[in-house]
């Protein structure tokens, strides 16, 4: 043991060696720039490797003389060798690593941004150094490995200086999360911010911004006089209405489930989860089937009262109904936790202090639910702001920001600057709501869970409240069931409202499979391509999202380091950024080197990771704060390092959180549309954007049939994940050791 303790504190640095090897491999072996196919097909080995410009590793690119700016990396890759044989406590060890890591990483970023496909990227560089004879493309595997190596060499240097108790794993993880959040959240947003100021001839001007910002289509108030209002006002009013309504409805559901003798609670829960696995615009489609010009309800009512059917549902009313139906379950999920979390003893205490049920609810339960209400409102608000599918399907002349952004980018007007300005307005609204929520909650503590056993029971709702709550829930339930019946039924109807014959036609068009005589299958259905892509992307992004989210949660709950608050804000920021904004900023930022990933599957995966990561973080934080910190500490004092502790102690106890994060990110990757619509390409088309395409061609039958299939696939996937992750057997659970504190 003494020997082991010595190697741990002595001069062997296995992690450092590993990252050095990675860096060297990246610089000398793998292609520096992005290759056409995946690196793993190894096609690049036969295309003139290692000397051809397209596939050459950084070293050969550098010595061939044309791209001499790649050679300085070598210095910083050689430098750390001199740190290898010095003990960690030697200040020189830390100094070498910090200098090599920081300068190497900095140089890599600087050259990447300075030199693009047209030589120098900035005019002043050309003036300073003269024109550059060469150019470079997006970074590839080699560059990525070298960048990671520099990053982790830097973090090991920082750890050796004694940051976070000198913990290599923790410092590395912090550095990693900061770097990826900076690259994939802050950089695109910042980039978009600047492109809002770009004029036609590529120079910067404030007036361009104001010209676009003060557009009547954005801020007009014509609707007050019977005309059309600007998209900004429309979005804002819609989002506030949706936020408030979904919060009230979500609260009603949560109250019925936790505080009434209602008998079908499980059924109610299932019903509210259903819309989460439904692509949001599917609700819009069902609403058209019901209330559209040839919708059932419209025609039924028209027959009775004898007026001609109208298109009233297209516009604000339709979008509002669809969004409320789609987002109430999210509010419910947020509120159920909060409503259950209000400690029964608080309510019991109020009752023993002579408050009746109504007074207890009004003065104790409801105020304690405030954070939940604020969160539910915020979620509804942001979801409504970002929703793209429903306004597109049902909006009619009702313009909202998200669709306007889309048409600014893909429409005939192709105006990046306008898209950026609109996206900024959208971002300002959501960040404003985020800020307002924090302000409203203030610094009061709403913690009611003490960790001590709390054996009380929640009081039942007062009668005066229970009746309206039941009524609301009843109506909503009937409505939801109708909607889903419509969706399933609609997928079998030949042409809604015109030919109501039942048929499998839509499913056959979408998912037909031909068997040739040799028994070879051919997927001839028109939906297969997008379906496989969607499954693949969702399956890749779900585990990555969960991993990044949980590591971040671990850092936030278990470690103390300088700048932790800004760190938390940064990781949660992407939550307040609507998908449409992410979509726009990604195509603006990642269309050009150094990171050229537009049109690939990578950009879809990356967008899903950063869209959905905050949920993984929240789920992780919630469960990790229930694990007593002494569990980690005892593992540390028993000789495990923090990575081993994370792996052996924290992760197994976090299986429910892992499952939640996996399911959520998988489902969201399959149903998301707002960011995806900007990022799909011919090669990587996603199911949702394919369906939206069918809707735009009025091919409702196929769209609904495809959506129905997606819902069933997601149900199956959720079940499968549950089996895969499994449960950790801890007998009578942690309630025992922790309740004794």
């Amino acid at each position: 043991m003494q020997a082991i303790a010595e190697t741990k504190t002595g001069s062997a640095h296995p992690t450092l060696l590993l990252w050095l090897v990675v860096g060297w491999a990246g610089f000398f072996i793998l292609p520096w720039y992005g290759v056409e196919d995946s690196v793993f097909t190894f096609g690049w080995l036969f295309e003139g490797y290692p000397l051809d410009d397209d596939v050459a590793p950084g070293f050969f690119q550098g010595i061939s003389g044309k791209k001499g700016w790649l050679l300085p990396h070598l210095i910083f890759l050689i430098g750390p060798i001199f740190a290898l044989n010095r003990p960690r406590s030697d200040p020189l060890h830390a100094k070498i690593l910090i200098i090599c890591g920081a300068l190497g990483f900095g140089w890599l970023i600087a050259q990447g941004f300075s030199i693009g496909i047209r030589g120098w990227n900035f005019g002043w560089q050309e003036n300073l150094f003269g024109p550059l004879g060469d150019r470079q493309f997006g970074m590839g595997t080699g560059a990525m490995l070298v960048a990671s190596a520099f990053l982790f060499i830097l973090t090991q240097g920082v750890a050796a200086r004694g940051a976070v108790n000198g913990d290599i794993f923790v410092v590395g993880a912090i550095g990693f999360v900061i770097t990826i959040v900076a690259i994939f959240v802050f950089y695109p947003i910042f980039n978009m911010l600047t492109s809002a100021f770009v004029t036609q001839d590529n120079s910067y001007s404030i007036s361009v911004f104001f010209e676009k910002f003060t557009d009547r289509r954005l801020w007009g108030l014509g609707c007050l006089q019977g005309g059309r209002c600007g998209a900004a006002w429309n979005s804002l009013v819609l989002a506030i209405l949706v936020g408030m309504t979904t919060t009230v409805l979500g609260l009603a559901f949560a109250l019925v489930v936790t505080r009434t003798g209602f008998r079908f609670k499980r059924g109610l829960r299932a019903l509210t989860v259903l819309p989460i696995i439904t692509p949001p615009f599917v609700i819009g489609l069902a609403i058209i089937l019901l209330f559209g010009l040839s919708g059932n309800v419209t025609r039924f009512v028209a027959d009775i009262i004898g007026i001609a059917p109208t298109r009233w549902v297209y516009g604000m009313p339709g979008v509002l109904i669809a969004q409320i139906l789609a987002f109430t379950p999210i509010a419910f999920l947020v509120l159920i936790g909060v409503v259950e979390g209000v400690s029964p003893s608080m309510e019991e205490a109020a009752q023993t202090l002579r408050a009746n049920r109504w007074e207890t609810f009004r003065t104790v339960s409801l105020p304690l639910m405030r954070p939940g209400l604020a969160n539910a409102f915020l979620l509804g608000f942001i979801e409504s702001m970002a929703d793209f599918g429903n306004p597109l399907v049902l909006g009619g002349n009702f313009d909202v920001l998200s669709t306007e952004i889309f048409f600014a980018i893909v429409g005939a007007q192709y105006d990046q600057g306008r898209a950026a300005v609109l996206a900024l307005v959208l971002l300002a609204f959501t960040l404003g709501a985020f800020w307002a929520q924090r302000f409203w909650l203030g610094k009061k503590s709403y913690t009611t869970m003490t960790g001590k056993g709390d054996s009380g029971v929640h009081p039942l709702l007062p009668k005066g409240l229970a009746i309206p709550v039941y009524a609301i829930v009843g109506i909503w339930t009937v409505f939801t069931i109708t909607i889903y019946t419509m969706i399933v039924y609609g997928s079998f109807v030949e042409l809604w409202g015109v030919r109501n014959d039942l048929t499998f036609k839509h499913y056959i068009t979408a998912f037909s499979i031909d068997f040739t005589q040799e028994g070879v299958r051919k997927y001839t259905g028109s939906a297969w391509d997008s379906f496989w892509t969607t499954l693949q992307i969702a399956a890749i992004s779900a585990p990555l999202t969960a991993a990044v989210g949980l590591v971040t949660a671990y850092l936030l709950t278990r470690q103390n380091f300088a700048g932790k608050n800004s760190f938390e804000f940064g990781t949660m920021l992407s939550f307040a950024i609507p998908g449409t904004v992410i979509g726009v900023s990604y195509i603006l930022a990642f269309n050009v080197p150094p990171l050229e990933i537009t049109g690939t599957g990578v950009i879809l995966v990356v967008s899903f990771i950063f869209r959905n990561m905050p949920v993984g973080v929240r789920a992780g934080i919630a469960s990790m704060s229930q694990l007593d910190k002494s569990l980690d500490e005892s593992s540390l004092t028993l000789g495990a390092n923090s990575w081993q502790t994370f792996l052996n102690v924290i992760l197994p106890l976090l299986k429910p959180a892992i499952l939640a994060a996996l399911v959520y990110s998988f489902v969201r990757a399959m149903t998301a549309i707002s960011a995806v619509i900007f990022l799909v390409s011919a090669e990587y088309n996603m199911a949702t954007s394919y369906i939206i395409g069918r809707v735009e061609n009025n091919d409702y039958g196929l769209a609904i049939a495809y959506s129905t299939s997606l819902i069933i696939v997601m149900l199956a996937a959720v079940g499968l994940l549950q089996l895969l992750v499994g449960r950790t057997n801890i007998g009578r659970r942690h309630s025992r050791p922790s309740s004794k504190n």
Partner: protein
Amino acid sequence: MLNKNSKAASVSFHNVSKVYGNPTTGVRAVDDVSINIEAGTLVTLLGPSGCGKTTTLRMIAGLEMPTNGKVMIGDMDVTNLPATDRDVSMVFQSYALFPHMSVLENVSYGLKFSGFKKSEIQDRALAGLNLVGLEGYGDRLPSELSGGQQQRVAVARALVLEPQVLLFDEPLSNLDAKLRRQVREEIREIQQNLGLTVVYVTHDQEEALAVSDRIIVMNNAVIAQDGTPRDLYDAPANRFVADFIGEANILDCRIAAIEGGEAQVEIEGYSLKLPARDSHVGSALLGVRPNRIVVGNPGAANSLAGEVVRVTYVGNHLELTIKTVAGDLFATSDDVDALLESGTKVSVTFAKNAPVLLKN
């Protein structure tokens, strides 16, 4: 399997401080503390909650890093070494057994990271379980054990690593009174048999007196007194220690003269000769244990006159509250048949050499 520990090492603190928050304005949890714990001894850190004892323990473990000062284990400076790299193991108040691992997996956990072979891990873990009397429980989950058994698993898990220093953070506070006595005796026995260096944190003074070779009493982030259990009980250095360890009557008195290390002490006409313990002539404090107060017939020479105001019968002795001119005294009397009742006039004297002069 577990032999007498040759690795047991000393622990020393050199002017160690721990400040939470801003180094100048923050909360000082430990303030300029120097201690020296010899190898193979059991030393208790004792004090009321918030006195800094747990912070001190966690700095030995490497779970907290000192703001100032130096921590040594054996000859090695471990001040900036994280817990993982120190050869120290700790038994937590909550036991911190990993709920998803069996008892055997819990005990093997630390061995896995110590480079032992698989078979040896198994052997050592089983030996550890034997040592705490839990053979045959290896396959159970922690939640399937009683509180006392869980506690033993936690001890076994720390013991099998044969650490240089073994730390206990209030290990008995979750056990009931009977079990507490039994387990503390077992801990002491294992410590002495294996010759371990043990640092033990508790707020229970009786527990501290029972298990320790030496007790370090802490109060308000500093050491109030450091000594053997008998030193602390019989000769507390100051009012805090006298009050905290056992019960004590603290009386105002006057030192009339000091001669050759003997002080002439006067209390309301009752005069005594006591070791001076570097006190000065003038007003002073006197501490007397309740069981060293002698209750006699009224009117005795050189005594304090008093009146019994409360008598409580607690089984093996009587507890008396006696009102005197020097203040209310709390006394115990083994003579449960004595005819004392509320209102009885008595005289009070102190057993020879029982009272001690205290610093404030």
